[in-house]
């Protein structure tokens, strides 16, 4: 068992717990970034250096930044924190929490049933990944393209601001 893995894992879990419990959304996001960084270390220890990098660049770097930007744009800081405080009462989280703990227990129990023969961690170099990606999984890459296009079109359509000028019928409706 790699020490690096254990440390990174502990950090990841701790940071994620903070994400769950944190009231301030900004803090939570930052904790999440920490968690993602720790996960990237874990990825590295599992012989996936390229993925570790991607985790940092895309997850921590792009997606999280996007969300942070969004939060800032809406200016949600303090007010939201208040809300979160008000919403996160034990009454609210205790039952779901319990169920999730049960789920966690079951999941871990099931994973621990693993009876596979122990094999070492095998490093998969980025080249091999690249070969796979543009070899057999070429179509999948194409499909990812479609996926992203769908995302873009959807986000474009939904993200546009409402024009206040509605369609004439709707307008009439609103007026009446």
């Amino acid at each position, binding site marked *: 068992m790699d020490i690096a893995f254990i440390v990174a894992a502990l950090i990841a879990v701790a940071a994620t717990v903070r994400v769950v419990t944190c009231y301030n959304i900004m803090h939570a996001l930052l904790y999440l970034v920490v968690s993602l960084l720790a996960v990237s270390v874990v990825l590295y220890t599992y012989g996936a250096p390229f993925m570790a990098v991607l985790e940092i660049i895309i997850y921590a770097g792009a997606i999280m930044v996007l969300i942070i930007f969004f939060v800032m744009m809406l200016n949600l800081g303090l007010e939201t924190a208040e809300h979160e405080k008000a919403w996160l009462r034990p009454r609210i989280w205790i039952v779901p929490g319990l169920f999730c703990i049960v789920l966690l227990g079951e*999941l871990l129990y*099931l*994973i621990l*049933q*693993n*009876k*596979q023969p122990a094999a070492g961690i095998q490093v998969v170099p980025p080249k091999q990944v690249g070969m796979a990606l543009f070899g*057999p*999984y*070429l*179509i*999948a890459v194409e*499909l*990812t393209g*479609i*996926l992203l*296009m*769908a*995302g873009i*079109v*959807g*986000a*474009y*359509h*939904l993200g*546009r601001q*409402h*024009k206040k000028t*509605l*369609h004439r*019928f*709707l307008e009439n*409706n609103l007026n009446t």
Partner: protein
Amino acid sequence: MSFADFISLGPLITLFTAVVISMLLIAIKRNHRITYAFSLLAYLMALTAIIPAALYIPHAVPPLLVVDEFSLFNTGLVLTSGFIILLLSYNYFEEREERKEEYYLLLPLATTGALVLVVSRHFMSLFLGLEILSISLYGLIAYLRARERSDEAGIKYLILAALSSAFLLFGMALVYAFTGHMDFPGIGAALRQAGYIPVTVLAGFGMMLIGIGFKLGVVPFHMWAPDIYEGAPLPVSAFIATISKGGMLVVLIRFYVDIHGNDYSMIWWMLAIVAVASMFAGNWLALTQQNIKRILAYSSIAHMGYILVAFLSGVQTGLEAISFYLVAYFITSIGAFGVLIVMSSSVQDAETLDDYRGMFWRYPWVATVFTAMLLSLAGIPLTAGFIGKFYIVMAGVNGHMWFLLFMLVINSVIGLYYYIRIIAMMFKAPATGEVTYIKPSLPVAGNITLMLLTLVLIGLGVYPTAMMQLIQQMMKMIV
């Protein structure tokens, strides 16, 4: 990719290419009519592309995809359904949304996702297809931005879909971790080879079931369905009810067959519980519901339960039954939503039961169509739904699943109640006094489409042989 790969994936590629072109068209000039016409054309071309693809079957595009009779059949089904939904869409969007053109990108994109599902035999393509479908649907569900409920529906669907995707992925990871394969036949072979099924793999299947169950809308992952059906634009609801569920079901069948799902009693039990719960929950929920969209949502939950019964029968007849039922269910659901669409005014959806009061006497033909659709949902003879239900029961009997069948019978009876409640409402004398009905748009294209659907519905109900032969042929190949 070889030439044969291209031809085999022709429908998919055609459709996607068309999406790209139509995006460019929109970029050049926004015109509802042109985009609409082009999309229709795209679907037609994609449908035509099935013919050359059929020459090469069965053709695998390793490791992700496989094109065989089963996938081509379902490709055809999905494309036809998409085409019909599109046909019904024009008027619906014409006056509801200023930016209507993106709809004609998102709908084919979603269809593409379903097509990927239909041909996939690998976790990766399953996942990607699912996500293409889901992400397009986020946009589609919330498409009508002026409508309050759209956003609510969209966000609900988004969070839940992502959540269930996460479950699906985690489950896949577990399966992958303990079998070393992500393609279905490989998994099946690995499990056969191992001689037993590792618990963790079972756990993985269980978690995948959550993701799949969510898309199918079975209990307990069904709760989104009514809200999304209600909030989404009607054609999109029709899409979710049919293509989205159908695509998932097809991939589930393939997966189940490839991993020899019948060998594992555990999976059987899980599905059986889900099936019974879905039947009861769906039917009970619909019982006194006043909103027809929600009724259709609940009824679709119950119908998925029925399908699962056939699924669980573990005989080839069961798979045939599902295919047939799916066809019938597609026709019926699209028909029912189609009626809702043509009955809706240019700004308001006709969705409450009261909107349909005395409809038979005001719009006899549309009411007849709706009646036929509802009767088909209820499984009454002369309709395709009857043959479908008959087929399912037959499969169940063949598999000796008496308990499940008994549940099915009970539920059919419960279900009957709310279907005929709608019918009764349509045949009631129109309300006296000052009642303002929704003024239905009754577009010509919509009416003709509905008429054709009804004809097909009754045709299949009266002469199902051809369809059955086709399905039987195709199922022989995959089992």
